[in-house]
């Protein structure tokens, strides 16, 4: 999605993680990300948006393992997890008046909505 950031126009894109603040320091600059990276260590905001933890079979499913295989083949460095691997994520679009207009709660770690769907949701939120 980072390589299509321009297409989101004037919309604010924000990444929310549950990484400890001290591990996150300078993360955005190191990766050259053009959007804020926030940390929700207590995962209170994750809970507010009803993002829970998946069952083991959801997390370590065939699609997840395939994703890891693809990352490894592409030469990505895959490190030993230090965080809760069962925490699921999601994508939400909030319109200019603060109303939620789109929600997508992932069922597996590799489960993401298509970028086109997010772009469409952002367009309708203007």
């Amino acid at each position, binding site marked *: 999605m980072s390589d299509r950031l321009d297409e989101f126009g004037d919309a604010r894109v924000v*990444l929310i993680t549950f990484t400890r*603040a001290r591990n996150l320091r300078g993360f955005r600059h190191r990766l050259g990300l053009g959007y804020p990276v926030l940390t929700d260590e207590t995962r209170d*905001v994750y809970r507010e948006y009803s993002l829970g933890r998946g069952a083991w079979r959801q997390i370590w499913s065939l699609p997840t393992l395939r994703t890891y295989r693809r990352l490894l083949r592409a030469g990505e460095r895959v490190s030993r997890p230090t965080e809760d691997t069962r925490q699921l994520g999601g*994508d939400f679009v909030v319109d200019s008046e603060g*109303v939620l207009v789109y929600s997508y709660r992932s069922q597996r770690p590799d489960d993401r909505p298509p970028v086109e769907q997010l772009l469409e949701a952002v367009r309708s939120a203007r």
Partner: protein
Amino acid sequence: MSVQPGDRAPDFDLPDDDGEWWRLSAHQGQPVLLVFHRHLA
């Protein structure tokens, strides 16, 4: 009961990777895409 499209988005105030605080309600007037990270090493 989970928050759904049509509901007011729950407001929050979280620190960024530089320690600056970022509040959702401070960005009313423009659409916001919130991407909640899922763990993938």
